[in-house]
């Protein structure tokens, strides 16, 4: 899932600025699950904006709506009227949601209420961890199901570096020290008697499938409909 967290309120208020009519748009998918931008968070944030405006002696007309998935055109069609009536749209979607609204409603002023953090999963209640860097060429089959691109601070393909100590990465301090991804890879492959997978030198990665190759796009001819075209 996409993991995000809400921006500080002061920043959100600055982004909304003088807009009188504000539409807070929550998203019912990833950011709902990570308690950052679902219907509940949209409601709380809407109230905070109203209260903040009142304290400043202003009046803001803040309304909230949550769509199932901000990143899909069909779900956004349903909020067209509300978007068009708003002076500012505060998206509580991930970066994709913000851009989807901005693309679909070119006249709308859309600002983000979240910082999109990473692709990850819940580790414990109230804790999320990164697991994927979307590099476009998955290596998990040879690294024991542990990603060195997302989880090694140096993205080593032939780790661990000399800073691995007692299972922890050299980066960070105290409890914030992440696990050494290469210690995890070693432990897993050793337990499975598959260390041979990492005894040869892993060649340099071809980063073209990652962000380095430019913005990415997937075209599936088998799924395309003749009339719909696509987005560049």
């Amino acid at each position, binding site marked *: 899932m996409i993991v995000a967290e809400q921006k500080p309120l002061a920043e959100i208020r600055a982004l909304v600025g003088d807009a009188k009519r504000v539409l807070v748009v929550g998203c019912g998918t990833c950011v709902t699950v990570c308690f950052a931008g679902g219907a509940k968070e949209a409601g709380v944030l809407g109230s905070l904006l109203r209260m903040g405006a009142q304290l400043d002696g202003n009046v803001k007309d803040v309304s909230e709506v949550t769509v199932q998935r901000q990143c899909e055109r069909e779900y956004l069609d349903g909020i067209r009227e509300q978007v068009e009536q708003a002076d500012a749209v505060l998206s509580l979607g991930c970066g994709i949601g913000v851009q989807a609204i901005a693309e679909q409603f070119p006249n709308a002023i859309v600002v983000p209420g979240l910082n999109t953090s990473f692709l990850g999963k819940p580790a414990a209640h109230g804790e999320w961890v990164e697991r994927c860097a979307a590099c476009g060429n998955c290596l998990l089959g040879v690294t024991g199901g542990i990603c060195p691109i997302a989880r090694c*601070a*140096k*993205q*080593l*393909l*032939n*780790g*661990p*570096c*000399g*800073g*691995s*100590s*007692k*299972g*922890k990465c*050299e*980066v*960070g301090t105290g409890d914030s020290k992440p696990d*050494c991804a290469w*210690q995890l890879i*070693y*432990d897993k492959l050793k337990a499975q008697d598959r*260390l041979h997978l990492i*005894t*040869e*030198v*892993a*060649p*340099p*990665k071809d*980063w073209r499938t990652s962000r380095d190759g430019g913005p990415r796009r997937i075209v599936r001819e088998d799924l395309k409909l003749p009339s719909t075209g696509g987005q560049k």
Partner: protein
Amino acid sequence: MNASNGTTSRLASILKHGHFAVTTELGPPKNADPEIVRAKARLLRGCADAVNITDNQTAIVRMSSIAAGVIARQEGLEPVIQMTCRDRNRLAMQSDLLGAYALGMRNVLCLSGDHQTFGNHPQAKNVHDIDSMQLVQMVVGLRDRGCFQCGEEIKGDNPRFFVGAAENPFGDPFDWRPYRLAKKAKAGADFIQTQLVFNVPRFREFMRRVVDLGVTEELSILAGVGPLKSPAAARYMRDQVPGMDVPDEIVERMEAAGRGIEDKKARTAAYRETGIQICVEMIGELREIKGVAGIHLMAIEWEDAVPIVTERAKLLPRPALEPETSACPPPH
């Protein structure tokens, strides 16, 4: 270890002839003053076969290792250019390697690099396009295959470096470290400089496994040593530096050195004397370990200690150059 690839490295020649090699380190300044490099170089001249020039060590901006290496070479040292994967992608690295070779550099040490969060620009984006193992492969490829990393042939002179890498015998997982070193041999590394050794028994065990794997037939291992300046430095290394193993006895010995000395200056001198003494003893022990081909002496920001340690450890004078393989001008 192979010095027959057309490299004209003095270090390669020393190792090839079976001399117990000595390398040390020169940290470039955090400014643009060439005199600082020259002064340090003059201190180190004659004490080592080659001198590592660090590359933004601990992720702090310093004069470029190649530029400082050129200055050090003018002072009669043979530089080992350190190159980290943190700050440059494969294009920039190869470009700098071509330039370094053109400027007379003959040795490269391939490193991952300390993470930028430790340094003075923690906001920086890191690169890590390739890792240190792949950097070794790339530099070896430039030399032996005459090809860039992409496979394209180098038309004209190709850089023929003597290629080094680092290994931390005290990093975890301990059992994997010898195999990881073997991977560096497979990548084509000619020599290895290790992290600072303070725990000799543990290092001996590491070396036993490395020798058993046949790694020392492929490359030369230089054991890392360094004099401790103070008990505080010893404690810091023991407690704060990831992947360092400083036994309590060493820390206690450093602490004992200053006990009962009231005068601050005299106490500092006593600490330093003990630090140097421990280092000299350590070199004696390391020399006896099978597979150790030399030492890499790291006296960080304490270059004055290098002549003292090397003298007392009976490592001087360094062997004279074999003229036919020498790439360095004679000291002037």
